[in-house]
């Protein structure tokens, strides 16, 4: 679990790291910690998964990867762990989750998000997934987003 100092660190870095030669020292000074303490905490939070990664967070839309396809797959329950791990390992899959079905409207239990510059590029990538998955997929579809109705970032209070 997070302690009060972790939460201060989250609040201080939600908008990014300071763009100075010693960013962890700058954070430490701001939070009344020492530099080694900041580095050790960030290392631990990365190992624990509270931080997914540290680096450049691209803006898909500004970079032209505007097509966003949610590929959804109906995979036998006993096979989904293995198939999901293989689909998630593809370098163009940005999120990969198992989720519950809602029969009969929604038979799909594996979701793999694929981004690309165009819908055709996304469809070609989904076709690659279909080859990888093979007959384990009983059905699949790609749902493209046609409009962003709301988008706000993560908000964590200190």
């Amino acid at each position, binding site marked *: 679990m*997070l302690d009060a100092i972790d939460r201060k660190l989250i609040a201080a870095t939600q908008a990014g790291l300071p763009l100075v030669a010693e960013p962890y020292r700058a954070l430490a000074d701001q939070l009344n910690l020492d530099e080694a303490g900041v580095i050790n905490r960030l290392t631990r939070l990365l190992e624990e998964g509270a931080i997914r990664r540290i680096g450049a967070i691209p803006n898909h839309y500004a970079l032209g990867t505007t097509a966003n396809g949610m590929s959804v797959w109906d995979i036998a329950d006993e096979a989904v762990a293995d198939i999901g791990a293989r689909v998630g*390992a593809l370098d163009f899959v940005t999120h990969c989750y198992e989720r519950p079905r809602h029969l009969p409207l*929604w038979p799909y239990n594996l979701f793999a998000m694929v981004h690309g510059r165009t819908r055709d590029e996304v469809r070609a990538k989904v076709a690659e997934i279909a080859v990888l998955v093979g007959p384990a997929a009983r059905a699949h579809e790609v*749902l493209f987003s046609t409009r962003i109705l709301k988008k706000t970032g993560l908000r964590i209070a200190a």
Partner: protein
Amino acid sequence: MRSLDPTEKAIINGLQGGFPLTQRPYRDAGAKLGLSEGEMIEEIGNLIAGGQLSRFGPLWNAEALGGAVCLAAIAVPPERFEEVAGLVNAHPEIAHNYERDHELNMWFVVSAEDPARIAQVIAEIERETGLRVRAMPKTREFFVGFRVEV
């Protein structure tokens, strides 16, 4: 959209994770890309100012921070789409909401620090809209090596 130069591409493609946890991380990361510490700081600042990067730093995992997140979808009759979007978006717990081309045509993410709020928000939306909300919480997450190639 302006095109990216090779240095900018190298930063975006090479630094979507693994930024060093060292005293001089821009210097250490730049060494792998053939850039000086000062060039790294300047280039990253320019990519943020230009909007190509949303930011540079840690990507926090909302759920690991103690909150809860749930994907949900509604099959909205087309003639009610704008009205329902307004009702859904009015909830501060809705972080993202997308229109998608399917009978289930509205897909949104409910997030709350208190996991019990998720079911409450879904129930409120069902009551306000009179439509059934299908909750699709993730039951398993598969590892992805997230990358956008430019």
